[in-house]
C-alpha cells in the first residue's frame, strides 16, 4: 500500500519534469531554426560590406566554439588561441599559394594541422594549471609573429601572402561575398553541431566534471590528462578551421593580423558572449566583430579605451555573459506569455 503511494509520488513530478524538458528542448530548436532561416535570408538583403561583416562573425564564432570547449566546458585557460587561428589561416594560405590545392581541400588539412600542433603543445601544457597554463599559452601567441616573419620564403614574411578568393560556382548564381558567407555558414553549422553533440555525451560530462571538481572526476574514472589534452587539441582544431575560412574570406594573411591582441580579443569575446553556453560563441563573435568598429566610431582617438569600457560594462550588467542575459530575458518573456 505504502509502496504504491511512494511510486505515484515520485512518478508524477518526473513526468512533469520530462514534459518541461521536452518543451524547453523544442523551444530551443525553434529558436535555432528561426535563426538559421534568418541567417540564410540575410545575405540577399544586406549590402556586400555587411555580408562580409557577418561572414567574419561566423568565422570568429567557429574559433570561439573551440575556445569555449577548452575554457567554458573544460575549465582550462588559453591566452594563445590566436596562434591556432593563425596556423589554420597560414596553413590554408600556403596550400593555396605554394601547392595550388583546390580550396575545399585546405579546410580538413588546416584543421588537422592545428589539431596535431594542439595535441603536441597540449601534452606538456595540460600538466600545468591556472596561471602557469596561461603563461605557456600566452608564450605561444608571442612566439608566433616572429616565427612567421622569419620563414619568409614560405610565409611571405612581413608582407604576407595575397591569394585569390574562392569563386562562386556558376550554378549558384551567387555573388562572391554571398558565396563566402554561405561557405562560412556551412562550416559554422557543422562546428556548432559537432560541439553540441560532443557536449551532450560522455565526453562533455567528463569535461564539465574536470571543470567543477578534478579530484572527484578522477575518482569517477575520468582520465584527467587524456581529456584535458584532447580538449586542447579539439579546441585548436576549431580555431584552425576558423583560420582557414578567414583566409578564404580575406584573401590575405600577414603576421600582424595574428598578434597577441587577437588571442586576448578572442578570450574577451568568449567571456563577454558567455562561457560554457551554447549561444556564447555566436554572441562573442558579434562582439569581436562589431564592438571594435563601434568603439572606433564613438571615439577615434582611443578605440581601445571604449572597447575596454564596454567589456567592463557587459561584465557588470551580465556576469554570465550576453548568453546569460539573453537566457534570462527569454525566460522572463516565456513567463509573461504563460501568465496571460
Amino acid at each position, binding site marked *: 500500500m505504502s509502496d504504491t503511494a511512494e511510486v505515484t509520488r*515520485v512518478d508524477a513530478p*518526473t513526468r512533469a519534469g520530462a514534459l518541461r524538458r521536452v518543451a524547453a528542448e523544442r523551444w530551443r530548436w525553434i529558436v535555432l531554426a528561426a535563426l538559421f532561416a534568418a541567417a540564410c535570408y540575410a545575405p540577399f538583403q544586406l549590402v556586400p560590406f555587411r555580408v562580409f561583416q557577418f561572414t567574419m562573425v561566423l568565422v570568429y564564432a567557429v574559433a570561439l566554439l573551440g575556445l569555449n570547449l577548452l575554457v567554458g566546458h573544460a575549465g582550462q585557460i588559453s591566452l594563445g588561441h590566436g596562434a591556432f587561428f593563425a596556423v589554420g589561416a597560414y596553413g590554408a594560405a600556403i596550400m593555396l599559394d605554394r601547392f595550388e590545392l583546390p580550396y575545399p581541400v585546405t579546410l580538413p588539412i588546416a584543421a588537422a594541422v592545428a589539431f596535431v600542433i594542439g595535441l603536441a603543445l597540449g601534452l606538456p601544457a595540460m600538466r600545468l594549471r591556472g596561471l602557469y597554463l596561461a603563461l605557456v599559452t600566452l608564450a605561444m601567441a608571442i612566439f608566433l609573429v616572429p616565427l612567421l616573419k622569419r620563414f619568409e620564403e614560405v610565409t611571405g614574411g612581413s608582407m604576407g601572402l595575397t591569394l585569390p578568393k574562392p569563386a562562386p560556382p556558376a550554378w549558384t548564381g551567387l555573388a562572391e561575398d554571398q558565396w563566402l558567407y554561405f561557405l562560412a555558414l556551412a562550416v559554422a553549422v557543422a562546428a556548432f553541431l559537432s560541439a553540441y553533440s560532443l557536449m551532450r555525451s560522455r565526453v562533455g560530462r567528463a569535461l564539465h566534471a574536470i571543470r*567543477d*571538481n578534478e579530484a572527484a572526476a*578522477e*575518482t569517477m574514472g575520468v*582520465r584527467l590528462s587524456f581529456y584535458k589534452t584532447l580538449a586542447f587539441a579539439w579546441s585548436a582544431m576549431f580555431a584552425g578551421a576558423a583560420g582557414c575560412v578567414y583566409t578564404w574570406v580575406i584573401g590575405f594573411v600577414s603576421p600582424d593580423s595574428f598578434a597577441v591582441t587577437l588571442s586576448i580579443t578572442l578570450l574577451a569575446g568568449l567571456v563577454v558572449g558567455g562561457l560554457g553556453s551554447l549561444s556564447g560563441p555566436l554572441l562573442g563573435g558579434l562582439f569581436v566583430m562589431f564592438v571594435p568598429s563601434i568603439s572606433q566610431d564613438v571615439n577615434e582617438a582611443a578605440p581601445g579605451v571604449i572597447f575596454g569600457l564596454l567589456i567592463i560594462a557587459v561584465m557588470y550588467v551580465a556576469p554570465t555573459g550576453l548568453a546569460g542575459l539573453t537566457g534570462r530575458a527569454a525566460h522572463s518573456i516565456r513567463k509573461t506569455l504563460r501568465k496571460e
Partner: protein
Amino acid sequence: MLEVHDLTVRFGGITALDGVGFSVRRGEMVGLIGPNGAGKTTLFNCLTRRYDADSGTVTYEGRSLLGVAPHAIAALGIARTFQNLGLFPRMSVRDNVMVGAHHRGRAGFLTAGLRLPGVGGEERRLRAEADEVLTRLSLAEVAEHPAAGLPFGTLKRVELARALVGRPRLLLLDEPVNGLNSAEVEAFAGTLRAIRDDLDVTVVVVEHHMGFVMGTCDRVVCLDFGRKIAEGTPAVVQRDPGVIEAYLGTAV
C-alpha cells in the same frame, strides 16, 4: 575481497596511518570509526589512490591496488563518496550521476563529435540507468536541478547515486549520515541495507554516528592516531576499553 596489510602513510613528519591492517569479506558491511584525525579518510584516499602509501600492501580481488592509476580505480568496481561532498556544482543532478557511469561508457571525442552510431544508444542506456538510481533514492524530482543550491542531505544522496550507477562491487562511504537528522539517518540506514542486498555490494563506511554504525555494520574497525586499536563485531568494539577511552568516552 579487500586486504589491507601494514599500511603506512606519512605526510612530512606526521604519520597519518601507522601499520594498519584489516580485511573485508565479500558482502560485508564494515564500519570504520575513530576520533577526528585518526586516519579514516586518509585510508579511503589510499584505497582510491589519491594518496601514495609509504609502505604496506592493499590487495583487492587478488590484485595489488597500489600500482593502479587513480582514474582506473572506478573500472575495478570501487566507488566512493566524499566527506565534504565531491559533487560537480554546475552540472545537473542527473549529469552528476551519469559521470559515475563514465568508466562504463565508450564514446570518445571522435565518435561523439561526429555523432557516430552507437553514441546515442549508449547515451540513452546510461541515462535510463541513472534515472533508475535517481528514482530509487527519491531524487527524480531534482534530476534537472544543478547540484549547487540543493540541501545537504539531498546532495549526500546524489553522491550515493553517483557511486551506485558505476555498479561498484566495493563501496566506500565517507560519513554518509553526517549532518542528517535522526529520521533521515534511519531512512538512510534502510536504503543502504536494501542496496547492499539488491546490488550485492560490499561496503566500508566511515561514520561518527554510533547508532548508525552499530545498527548497520557487521564488523567495526576502530582507528586512533593512525593505528588500529580494535576490531570486531559492533557489540564487542563498543565495550572495548581502548575504544571507550580513545573515542566513545565514559559516562561520568
